[in-house]
């Protein structure tokens, strides 16, 4: 499961990806911040087109393993309502050496942001809300690695 509605458990991902050949572990954690574009944010709600989102996250994991000399890549994204400070996303990469782990982790988060059909709805402290401007799935993008 790469899309979850309950808090993401880091320990579980660490256990799943444990590898004696790994000398590096890179963890990227996305968290809910209390502001965006100068507006104070009270909470977020994530929604997804789940059939394609699940498939896309799995593809990104495979691509990261193909492109970089890493042992494991796992991506888990939270859905539903999140409060400030909650974890929205975890990416766990294990590799023999640190450079590849950093590169693969950066690749994975950029691809998630551009390709995963997931939407972020922000609610502000004044009670108004709006969807965050995002990336069209019709547009190709290039990620520096």
């Amino acid at each position, binding site marked *: 499961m790469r899309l979850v509605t309950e808090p993401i458990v880091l320990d579980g991902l660490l256990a799943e990806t444990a590898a004696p050949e790994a000398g590096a572990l890179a963890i990227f954690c996305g968290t809910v911040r209390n502001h965006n574009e100068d507006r104070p944010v009270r909470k977020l709600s994530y929604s997804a*087109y789940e059939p394609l989102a699940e498939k896309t996250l799995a593809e990104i994991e495979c691509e990261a393993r193909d492109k970089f000399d890493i042992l494991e890549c796992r991506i888990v994204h939270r859905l539903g309502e999140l409060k400030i400070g909650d974890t929205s996303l975890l990416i766990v990469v294990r590799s023999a050496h640190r450079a590849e782990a950093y590169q693969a982790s950066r690749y994975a988060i950029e691809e998630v942001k551009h390709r995963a059909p997931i939407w972020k709805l922000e609610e502000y402290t004044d009670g108004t809300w709006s*969807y965050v401007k995002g990336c*069209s799935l019709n547009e190709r993008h290039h990620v520096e690695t």
Partner: protein
Amino acid sequence: MEIRIEYYGILEQVCGTRAEKLELHDDGQATVREAVDCLVKRHAGLEPHREHIAYAVGETLIQETAPVVDGAVLALLPPVSGG
């Protein structure tokens, strides 16, 4: 024929619904583009978003030129903002 339309992200707000049915002519030539032409007539607010909307059936992205079949579920996906 009849297909089901699903709206995601801001499109749910624009169209005022999460999903709805759409009747299309039944000559085997219907495409996503025709379906969306009908939807824009039904929901004028869709037009400014159209250029940036992607389409999917199941777990596959499809083009506006793709055919649609009776009973299909067509998902309209606005720009994404996960992470």
